[in-house]
């Protein structure tokens, strides 16, 4: 499968990773190669096979509904690159 430049740019936008113009070609080549390589899976007959998302076969464990966390705002904000009055601060987001 060929991952052309347009697709590389689309994926870069979806992943929020800026790819410079001069790198797009290289990424296109590398990604195309990797995707072509993984397409080998098409050789496997998987009709009627249930997909597996996690190798363990446990069921989801439950937690009791009690308040035993939070009230750690200092820790939460400690590593923030920009914060003010208890909030995380980012450039204005328009809807």
């Amino acid at each position, binding site marked *: 499968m060929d991952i052309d430049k347009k697709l590389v740019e689309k994926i870069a936008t979806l992943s929020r990773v800026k790819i410079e113009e001069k790198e797009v070609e290289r990424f296109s080549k590398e990604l195309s190669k990797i995707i072509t390589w993984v397409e080998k899976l098409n050789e496997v007959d998987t009709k009627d096979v249930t997909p*597996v998302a996690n190798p363990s076969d446990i069921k989801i464990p439950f937690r009791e509904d009690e308040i035993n966390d939070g009230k750690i705002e200092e820790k939460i904000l400690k590593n923030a690159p920009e914060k003010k009055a208890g909030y995380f601060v*980012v450039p204005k987001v328009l809807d």
Partner: protein
Amino acid sequence: MDLKNINLEECLKFLKEKKISSKELTTFYLKEAEANKDLNAYILLNSDNAIKSAEESDKRISNNTARPLEGIPIAIKDLFCTKDVLTTAASKMLNNFKPTYESTVTQKLWDAGAILLGKTNLDEFAMGSSNETSFFGPSINPWSKDKKKYVPGGSSGGSAAAVSGNIAIAATGTDTGGSIRQPASYCGIVGVKPTYGRCSRWGIVSFASSLDQAGPMTKTVNDAALMLDVMAGYDKKDSTSANLKKTTFYKDLKNKKKLRIGIPKQYKNDQLNKEIIKFWELGIEFFRKNNCEVVEIDLPHTEYALATYYIISSAEASSNLARYDGIRYGLRKNSENINDLYEQTRAEGFGEEVKRRIMIGTYVLSAGYYDAYYLKAQKVRSKIINDFNEAFKMVDIIFTPTAPSDAFEQGSKIDDPIQMYLNDVFTVPVSLAGLPAISVPMGLSKNNLPLGFQIIGKSFEEDSVFSAAKIIEENSNFKRETEK
């Protein structure tokens, strides 16, 4: 006393017998680590606090309140969050990050009396098999000689180099597709990836959630069993953690087991170098001599495991790494526009391999491609798991080489991602199936570099894995470089 070549078991004995103090031990290792900076095995040495902790351990030892690992300095892969201590995942993205919390696995080590020696180098965000993608530069395989630089393997390259280079008694690693086993093989040490769910993932920087597992990297099989007993255990903060009783792997080593060994025919191919085939056959002999039946088994979907692994791990990684956005912690590249902030931060914070995997992961999950790639991979995964289930009806252990070659030279594969991925061909199927496996060194290649062999067991039967590993270890009598 030869502190350089000492192993964990010996340390505990000498500490108990008061032949050495934790302070001496810890000071020695800090010095050795400093003196061997060229290995670049450590990102950070815990110089200030390690000595203090050692002194406290000495107090406990002297008043007989010593815990299982009291006074032992241990190297921790810099993927485990350590409270108030830099945790970088070898990435520029987190190069200033100090967690306010401790990972469950490392907390268990500290609760057992162990001491943080330092944080070891790794491939960035655990993505790689050579430790060449680290923001802090590559780590070097201590077996490197004659001006040639060999890779220690990856992603837990720093931990492997430290233990192998005698600048750590033992270390922790994480294994997603082979990241403990393959570097253990390249560096000639023991590395264990436990069953998925055996150790808690809470507080370990997440790469691929359905594959990641923490494990010990040590000089001997006994050490690994000892350490795993401390690291393992149910954690209610991790919904994928297995709720089983406390392990007694170290104690159970005494019980020799009669095991049926399987050799997967799909792992044999004429491209394997001659020494690997030689040692593999030698290993089979060791098992036979020890009353273990050896048979050929079938793992028909082996050739599809790598592709399956790369699709699944990249998909999970692309989502797990979305939280690195410059808002709550880590690197931030400021901008007046939020999307620009995200894009610049992540472009600068992530290295090439990480970017590649995020892009692959995003692609295989995206609309129109999900069925053909991600869903397909999960189905093939199911078939691979089934292969192992079928094989394990006939055998207790599967015995294979850990890697298709010995360590390679730095820079020789970094420009060819697929060549790099092929390093994991024997380790990846095990990860997909969530099974336990160990790598034990058997001998040297013609380049004088270690060759490790993999022992795979059934889910939660690490005791059989350790038992088989002992047979290989005792019979191989592999001497680490510095012991010769």
